[in-house]
């Protein structure tokens, strides 16, 4: 049983004038649990306090009931008395006798008295059910996270650091400075923006208590106020701290992108620094990932890199990029099926960039002159490469570059493998292959041609003779023949044999009627070769239909143009002839569904067998490892006709023996074999050095995508078509069919590249940087910080005036926004502060400024609010223009002139006197004239008169909206946004810089449109809020928060789903139950009302207390 004391206040007659307090006291004494009732004249004063202290001590009270004014007025006074008397929290109950009774029932004293009795009884009953609570204390981390590096964030950070609080200043962009860094001058003083911002920037860079995190985003927030845990994601800068800010890199960077800092009025390089005073002062590379071409290429060639360099005619540098992963750029420029072009973003706009053709031109142009660099260091471990095809030679070159002595063994008399012996010369001239093979050998690679593995030497003998590693790049030199009846007839040959004989100049004859069996590239090559060898009729017969034929479509089309016939969906069943081949019989067929390995066997379909006249049949139906090639190679396993290798190391089952290319993969195109050879070289290096020094498989980057919106702003430019020899001329000629680009064509084609990846990874900057600061290996990384409080100062963005199509922004060259004009007027801007209109660089004589673009606009395309600064922004710019160009007239068309604030009206008068014309008006559509001037029609809203005038430049005062970063952070950390995305404050007047979440404060234009002085004032107010919150290091948790009894909780999680603060979570402590983070809880009690088990309660407002009060 509790011991309750009741104290009734007369309130100097306010209460006792209506209620009979002695009678109320008398009734109170008989209530359960009441041990004492006292009446006082003024309970809230010092006398009342002494009275309560005395009675509590004398009568041993543990509960106090106050009958006085509303709890909202003097409640804290009496709660403090109870606290001081160590009765605990939640030991006082209140009977509202003044606002709740005496004041409102003055004319009905009898009824008032009866109600007072009930109210008092309710309070006493409630007191009996109030459980004393002890507040817990939480640790406060004396650090703060400031999100946004603009003037608001900088000011807040500076203030916090001054109070001794550690600050983490997080900025998405590459430099601090925010919007203010873009401004030329500021109103109404016309002082330079950078002059006031510069010292703030310098301070942030040097203050040891401010940790600057640029290129960083907040990705998560957890934990209670005072001990927030913040997840940060740092994007790589690709430039290390060694950067001295010299700018050499930007001069050599070939990639130009739209400058975000200059709001699109100029272009910048992929490596850049937005402005000279940037903090940090280091440059950064805008690398958005791999362009689709680079992603798609099996060797991940930086195609965008050599294209960017080619676009500037930097052929030698382009060759360096193209040849880095691939010693055969000239070959691949000719024969690669270029899947990269299928993926090219430009294909979504018009046609893909002719990547392969550019590469061919680059390699032909600069390959021969490219110097061969000696390796940086040399190792003594000798490596044998078996097979001088693309895989073997790539591995040989890469190993030579790594410093190994390499010997390449080749069974044939010439090096080049399939490039030399398989691909016919009209596609790939022999001298092209020969010169690239020569370049590989120039790295010091020894070639031993005419020695066959398994015959002249074996793997065993190589290892025994001192080679530390052997790479088997044997290829698949054996043509497969189908086991058909009549196979042994003369005139039945393998496609590879035909191509090889022709390539080696061996005598070979084909008949009059040639049938090529097979649908791949080799079949097409064999057919066209047969044609050039004099066959009259050449037919390609394949089991696939036209649509699924595996041959490259371009090659097939050229073959058909030359007269090759195509007979699809036929399976050969017999070769007929008496002593000599006379015909081949086919059965019409379809392909079965793919089996487990993806192979689709032919199935005979209805229809009569077809007999085709043939004196030569060429089988191009697959290839196999050479016979005996693996003799003396114990431990090297073969499965499915291919050498088995470990994917991660490229090693076979035998230690020190590796395999790559067709022999290990099968059916590879040249660039795949080249990529495999390069992997093998890295695998061998790791093996010989005994540690994983190189990634065998390149670490892939995210694929950079260009949005449809961005794409829609690019102009269409058709692809350069390559000239070819006409079909009638070429069917009898071994001349190369495709003639390649001229320099003009190559330049024009390279300039079509959209630079999807931003940085093209051409590495020009890496070579040029005198400080060695470029580091393209940097990766994004995450970290978690613990901070006591957050300030969100993520700023605004300009309203996108494209949303107002009649104003022509984005379509008409000479329509700008005020922010863009600020860049043109800035001494450090792209024009050095000279006002030049974009279309022709002339100084405009007539400037028109249009106010309220996207502001005070209740249509769905605009925002309802007034953006607050635009009238002054336009006035400032008009003043600056009039000052520098007295011959230029400025007209400001406004809705209303709104510029309250200190010195603003005076400034307006001054500027108007300088000859700026202000017209109160409504503007219709803008029209562009032939000379790019703009015809503006408006209605004067004072006189009603209609006007039409020509202007050289139109400037739109586009309003303010919350920035994209503001929306992003609001989502991540759970802040409410109002109209136009601005952050909602806790209370617009009383708590203007508090957010809805405890411990998170807001400042600057993220909260609403405002000028620089108000922004700084808010930032410093937010800093003051953080300082007072974190002062002392510890905080008492309010007791009026939710609490869940783990013994009663059934773990249903309803509380978790309803909590507006996200303060409740389920934990598994043997049994799943709810746990309230009391520092985040704001005590609304929604959870307690929803809780089905009664486990959840709220301090001070338990069910027991509320029911006691409600049911008297």
């Amino acid at each position, binding site marked *: 049983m509790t011991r309750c004391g009741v104290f009734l206040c007369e309130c100097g007659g306010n209460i006792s004038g209506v209620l009979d307090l002695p009678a109320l006291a008398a009734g109170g004494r008989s209530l359960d649990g009441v041990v004492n009732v006292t009446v006082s004249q003024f309970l809230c004063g010092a006398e009342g306090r002494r009275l309560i202290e005395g009675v509590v001590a004398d009568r041993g009270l543990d509960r106090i009931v106050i009958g006085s004014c*509303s*709890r*909202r*007025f003097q409640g804290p006074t009496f709660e403090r008395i109870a606290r001081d008397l160590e009765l605990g929290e939640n030991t006082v109950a209140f009977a*509202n006798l*003044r*606002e*709740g009774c005496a*004041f*409102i*029932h*003055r*004319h*009905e004293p009898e*009824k*008032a008295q*009866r*109600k007072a009795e*009930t*109210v008092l009884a*309710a309070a006493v009953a409630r007191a009996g059910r109030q459980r004393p609570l002890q507040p817990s204390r939480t640790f406060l981390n004396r650090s703060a996270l400031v999100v946004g590096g603009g003037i608001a964030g900088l000011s807040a950070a500076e203030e916090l650091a001054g109070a001794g609080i550690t600050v983490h200043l997080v900025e998405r962009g590459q430099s601090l400075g925010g919007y203010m860094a873009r401004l030329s001058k500021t109103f109404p003083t016309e002082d330079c923006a950078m002059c006031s911002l510069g010292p703030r920037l310098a301070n942030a860079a040097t203050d040891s208590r401010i940790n600057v995190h640029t290129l960083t985003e907040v990705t998560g927030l957890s934990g209670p106020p005072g001990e927030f845990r913040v997840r940060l994601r740092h994007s790589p800068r690709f430039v290390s701290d060694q950067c001295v800010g010299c700018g050499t890199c930007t001069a050599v960077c070939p990639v130009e992108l739209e400058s975000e800092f200059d709001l699109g009025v100029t272009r910048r390089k992929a490596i850049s620094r937005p402005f000279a005073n940037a903090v940090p002062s280091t440059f950064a590379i805008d690398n958005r990932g791999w362009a689709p071409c680079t992603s798609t290429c099996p060797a991940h060639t930086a195609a965008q890199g050599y294209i960017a360099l080619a676009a500037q005619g930097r052929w030698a540098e382009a060759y360096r990029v193209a040849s880095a992963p691939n010693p055969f750029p000239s070959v691949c420029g000719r024969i690669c099926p270029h899947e990269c072009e299928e993926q090219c973003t430009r294909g979504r706009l018009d046609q893909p960039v002719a990547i392969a053709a550019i590469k061919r031109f680059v390699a032909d142009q600069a390959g021969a002159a490219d110097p061969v660099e000696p390796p940086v260091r040399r190792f003594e471990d000798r490596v044998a490469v078996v097979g001088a095809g693309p895989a073997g030679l790539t591995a040989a070159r890469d190993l030579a570059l790594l410093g190994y002595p390499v010997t390449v063994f080749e069974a044939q008399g010439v090096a080049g493998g399939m490039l030399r012996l398989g691909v016919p010369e009209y596609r790939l001239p022999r001298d092209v292959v020969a010169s690239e093979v020569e370049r590989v050998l120039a790295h010091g690679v020894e070639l031993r041609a005419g020695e066959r593995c398994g015959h002249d030497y074996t793997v065993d003998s190589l290892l025994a003779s001192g080679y530390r590693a052997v790479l088997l790049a044997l290829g698949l030199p054996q043509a497969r023949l189908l086991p058909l009846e009549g196979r042994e007839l003369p005139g039945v040959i393998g496609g590879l044999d035909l191509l090889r004989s022709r390539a080696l100049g061996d005598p070979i004859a084909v008949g009059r009627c040639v049938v090529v069996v097979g649908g791949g590239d080799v079949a097409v090559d064999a057919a066209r070769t047969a044609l050039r060898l004099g066959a009259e009729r050449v037919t390609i017969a394949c089991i696939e239909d036209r649509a699924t034929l595996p041959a490259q479509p371009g090659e097939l089309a050229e073959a058909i143009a030359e007269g090759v016939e195509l007979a699809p969906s036929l399976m050969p069943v017999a070769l007929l002839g008496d002593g000599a081949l006379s015909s081949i019989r086919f059965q019409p067929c379809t392909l079965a569904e793919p089996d487990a390995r993806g192979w689709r066997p032919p199935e005979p379909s209805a229809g009569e067998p077809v007999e085709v006249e043939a004196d030569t049949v060429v089988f191009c139906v697959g290839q196999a490892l050479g016979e005996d090639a693996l003799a003396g190679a114990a431990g090297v396993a073969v499965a499915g006709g291919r050498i088995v290798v470990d994917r991660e190391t490229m090693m076979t089952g035998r230690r020190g023996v590796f395999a790559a290319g067709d022999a290990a993969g099968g059916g590879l195109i040249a660039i795949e074999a080249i990529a495999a050879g390069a992997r093998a070289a890295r695998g061998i290096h790791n093996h010989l050095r005994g540690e994983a020094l190189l990634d065998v498989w390149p670490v892939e980057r995210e694929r950079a995508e260009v949005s449809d919106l961005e794409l829609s702003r690019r102009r269409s430019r058709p692809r350069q078509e390559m000239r070819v020899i006409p079909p009638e001329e070429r069917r009898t000629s071994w001349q190369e069919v495709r003639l390649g680009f001229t320099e003009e064509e190559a330049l024009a084609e390279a300039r079509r590249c959209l630079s999807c990846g931003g940085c093209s990874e051409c590495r020009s900057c890496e070579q040029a940087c005198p400080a060695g600061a470029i580091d393209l290996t940097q990766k994004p990384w995450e970290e978690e910080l613990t901070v006591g409080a957050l300030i969100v100062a993520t700023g605004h963005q300009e309203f996108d005036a494209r949303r107002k199509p009649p104003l022509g922004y984005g379509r008409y060259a000479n329509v700008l926004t005020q922010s863009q004009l600020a860049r043109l007027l800035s001494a450090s801007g792209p024009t050095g502060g000279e006002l030049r209109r974009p279309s022709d660089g002339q100084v405009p004589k007539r400037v028109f400024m249009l106010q309220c673009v996207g502001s005070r606009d209740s249509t769905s395309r605009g925002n309802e609010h007034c953006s607050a600064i635009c009238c002054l922004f336009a006035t400032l710019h008009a003043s600056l223009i009039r000052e520098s160009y007295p011959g230029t007239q400025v007209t400001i068309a406004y809705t209303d002139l709104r510029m309250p604030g200190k010195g603003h009206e005076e400034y307006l008068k001054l500027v108007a006197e300088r000859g700026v014309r202000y017209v109160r008006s409504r503007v219709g559509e803008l029209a562009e004239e032939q000379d790019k001037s703009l015809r503006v029609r408006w209605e004067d809203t004072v006189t009603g008169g209609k006007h039409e005038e020509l202007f050289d430049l139109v400037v739109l005062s586009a309003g303010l909206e919350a920035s994209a970063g503001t929306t992003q952070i609001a989502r991540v950390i759970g802040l*409410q946004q109002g109209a136009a995305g601005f952050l909602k404050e806790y209370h617009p007047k009383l708590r203007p810089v508090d957010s*809805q979440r405890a411990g998170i404060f807001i400042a600057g234009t993220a909260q609403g449109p405002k000028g620089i002085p108000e922004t700084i004032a808010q930032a410093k107010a937010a800093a003051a809020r953080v300082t007072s919150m974190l002062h002392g290091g510890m905080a008492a948790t309010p007791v*009026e928060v939710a609490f869940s009894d783990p013994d009663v909780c059934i773990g249903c999680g309803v509380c978790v789903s*309803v909590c*507006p*603060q996200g303060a409740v979570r389920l934990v598994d402590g043997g049994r799943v139950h709810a746990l309230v983070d009391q520092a985040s809880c*704001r*005590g*609304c*009690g*929604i959870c*307690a*009302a*929803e809780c089905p088990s009664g486990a959840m309660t*709220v301090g*001070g*407002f338990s*069910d027991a207390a*509320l*029911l006691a*009060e*409600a*049911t*008297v």
Partner: protein
Amino acid sequence: MNVPVVAEAEPTAPAVAATEVRVAQVRVPEISAAGVPVSEVIADAADGERSIVAFLCRECAYSAADAAGNARTSLPPTIRTIMVPCTGRVSPLHLLAALAEGADGVYVAGCLEGQCHHRVGNFHALDRVAFVRRLLRSVGVEPERAAMFTMSAADTPRFVATARGMDATISQLPRLPRS
């Protein structure tokens, strides 16, 4: 058997009903234990002073009530107010217990829609009051004995109007017997 059915009258709209709870129109026949319609049992109960318990949120409605008091506005003495941190704290149990233990009417008053200091507490309260009204109707008790109002802290006139309206509504109804 001819089962008597409680007359299903539309709930009489209180004087102020701008943010009235919408109640699903369900017809649930109900009779008392004695087979007599519940409304008749209630009508037989001894008449007298009505009693209304009002749950006011600390942020808006209680502020408005205090302001009404300070302005010495006359209010019906039938209404007794209880402070809650947020209308979201009020559960159906609180409302039903008050009705069972002597109140003839109950209501919840909180912040305007979209302006709840705990974002959504008043929406929860709206749902729960609607639930209580359905429950009352299903047992043959007039649903208008439970209501929900929203108002800003500054809107004293609205607090006064809703209090008087609720008093007027309840005074039209017979007293509820105490359980």
